[in-house]
């Protein structure tokens, strides 16, 4: 009876996304027919020639990949000869590393985040958690190809990206990133998928805040909208040549774009959905921390792809990023471990892995800019501050950020973003200009602070608006009996036997 009601109820909402998918496919078909007919006439040199009009335009620090030609761009003919951009050449070594890095970052989400979170909930909800993470992976893949990549990485507007590469129009077999002036270029397809894995993990991290109570039918539209509206926008600001990039904010691998973004969105979800039924009275202990350890381990290993991959080359930058990543993670884990040991008399595995992830989060924005010293301090600070956030802060404000998406990712991300301003150094970043405070450039703190504040504010508001919309259409929270029965059975008709 109940099942039947649900069925028809949900089926109605299921139809919506299916139609959307069909629509997407149709648009893809249309778009592609157009673009591929163009592609057929254009062979490689022609394709590269398209970029010629960009002559004289000083490439942004964060070079936008292979823009399609801007018909209105007026080449400054005087400078043409001196600065004519040379088409890039593909570097197999760099490409090899970026293919690998992409696989590693995907590994972080499936099964990494799925297991990290899945092990921490009660047994009756574990499948629901991995389902949310896995389905998010699928949804964002399609969204990213359809529009996300274009919104993040194209367009001249400082605040919002363009649609010129929707459905990856113009991204072909021989398109390179960066398009010009590099002998270390990689196929743009690789760049697209590498960036896609970042777009995937970010909403997947939000799941940790709202587990055990959000409807699957709410999660589907929420994730799609959030990725398009929030993720692509912030990514554009920081990496796509937007205003934060212009301002000189440093975020090597996604401290703001990924972690602050996801963590704050998680907090908004936790608050708007309300606490889990039984929170504070019932036993909600993690059902299987072995799974969480596997998840944390895969996060750690995969983070090499995340941070060292953000060098977009197999070079000294990548090596340095890997080193500081490893170090900060270990230091943060140890700091958390010893703090807990002193405070509670026992060091727990959940503590150690939480610390490791906090360290990884905090070193993310800094990983291309700081050395051994910076890694030590950032790791230690992340361990300390995140420990405080998930124990004291959460208790004080009584929000139910179930698996500490906010406490670890937003808080750790903020620690990292600010300390990047302190410890970034030209010795690691390369170049001659002073970088962070430690180099004497205290002014770097400003863009760091701006980027934190802007991300927090924008994400908080936009996430809340999206939740309000989704709530109005499908509702956000499962009924209390379903929460009690467990979401595995109630929402997915499956259970761990």
């Amino acid at each position, binding site marked *: 009876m109940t099942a039947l009601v649900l069925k028809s109820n949900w089926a109605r909402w299921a139809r919506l996304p299916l139609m959307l998918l069909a629509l997407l496919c149709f648009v893809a078909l249309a778009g592609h027919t157009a673009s591929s007919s163009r592609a057929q006439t254009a062979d490689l040199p022609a394709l590269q020639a398209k970029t010629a009009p960009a002559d004289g335009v000083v490439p942004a620090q964060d070079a936008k990949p292979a823009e399609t030609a801007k018909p209105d761009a007026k080449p400054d003919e005087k400078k043409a000869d001196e600065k004519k951009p040379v088409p890039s050449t593909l570097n197999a070594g760099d490409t090899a590393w970026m293919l690998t890095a992409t696989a590693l970052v995907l590994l972080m989400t499936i099964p990494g985040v799925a297991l990290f979170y899945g092990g921490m909930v009660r047994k009756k909800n574990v499948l629901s958690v991995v389902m949310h993470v896995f389905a998010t992976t699928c949804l964002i893949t399609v969204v990213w190809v359809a529009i996300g990549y274009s919104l993040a990485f194209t367009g001249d507007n400082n605040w919002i990206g363009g649609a010129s590469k929707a459905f990856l129009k113009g991204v072909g077999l021989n398109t390179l990133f960066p398009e010009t002036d590099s002998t270390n270029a990689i196929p743009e397809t690789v760049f697209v998928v590498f960036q896609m894995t970042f777009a995937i993990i970010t909403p997947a991290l939000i799941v940790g805040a709202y587990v055990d109570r959000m409807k699957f039918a709410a999660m589907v539209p929420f994730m799609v909208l959030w990725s398009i509206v929030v993720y692509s926008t912030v990514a554009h600001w920081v990496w796509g040549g937007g205003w934060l990039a212009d301002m000189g904010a440093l975020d090597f691998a996604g401290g703001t774009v990924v972690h602050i973004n996801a963590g704050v969105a998680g907090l908004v979800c936790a608050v708007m959905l309300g606490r889990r039924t039984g929170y504070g009275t*019932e036993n909600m202990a993690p059902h299987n921390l072995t799974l969480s350890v596997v998840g944390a381990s895969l996060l750690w290993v995969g983070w090499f792809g995340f941070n060292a991959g953000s060098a977009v080359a197999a070079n000294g930058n990548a090596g340095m990023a890997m080193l500081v990543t490893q170090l900060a993670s270990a230091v943060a884990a140890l700091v958390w471990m010893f703090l807990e040991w002193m405070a509670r008399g026992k060091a727990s595995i959940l503590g150690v892995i939480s610390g490791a992830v906090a360290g990884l989060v905090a070193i993310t924005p800094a990983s291309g800019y700081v050395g051994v010293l910076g890694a030590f301090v950032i790791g230690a600070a992340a361990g300390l501050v995140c420990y405080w956030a998930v124990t004291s802060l959460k208790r004080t404000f009584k929000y139910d950020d179930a698996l500490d998406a906010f406490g670890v990712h937003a808080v750790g991300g903020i620690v990292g973003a600010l300390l990047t301003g302190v410890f970034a150094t030209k010795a690691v970043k390369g170049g001659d200009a002073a970088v962070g405070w430690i180099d004497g450039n205290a002014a770097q703190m400003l863009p760091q602070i701006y980027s934190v504040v802007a991300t927090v504010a924008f994400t908080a508001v936009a996430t809340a608006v999206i939740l309000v919309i989704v709530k109005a259409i499908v509702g956000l929270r499962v009924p209390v009996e379903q929460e009690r029965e467990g979401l595995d059975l109630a929402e997915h008709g499956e*259970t761990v036997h």
Partner: protein
Amino acid sequence: MKLVSAIIKPFKLDEVREALLGLGVTGMTVTEVKGFGRQKGHTEIYRGAEYAIGFLPKIKIEVAVKADVTERAVEAIAKAARTGSIGDGKVFVFDIEHALRIRTGESNDDAI
């Protein structure tokens, strides 16, 4: 002595325990069981296959009490475990012929 054996909904365990402690009961034994009754089970679907699961997770609480406490214990349990919806469970009372506390060797009423 009597053994009061109650089948209840799992999430009611803590409330029932508190109710029993309120009566001065100092011990009890709990078993995870599966119950079949008027309350309908659920259906699991795996690709092509559907399995109707008749059995639902329940908790069995067994508590040995002195004869004169029996009635109050049964009532306390029933009160704490009641939700009013189907599947709330049963309480059965059995006679215990003999009881022994292993640690001390005490017998019968002293043992519980």
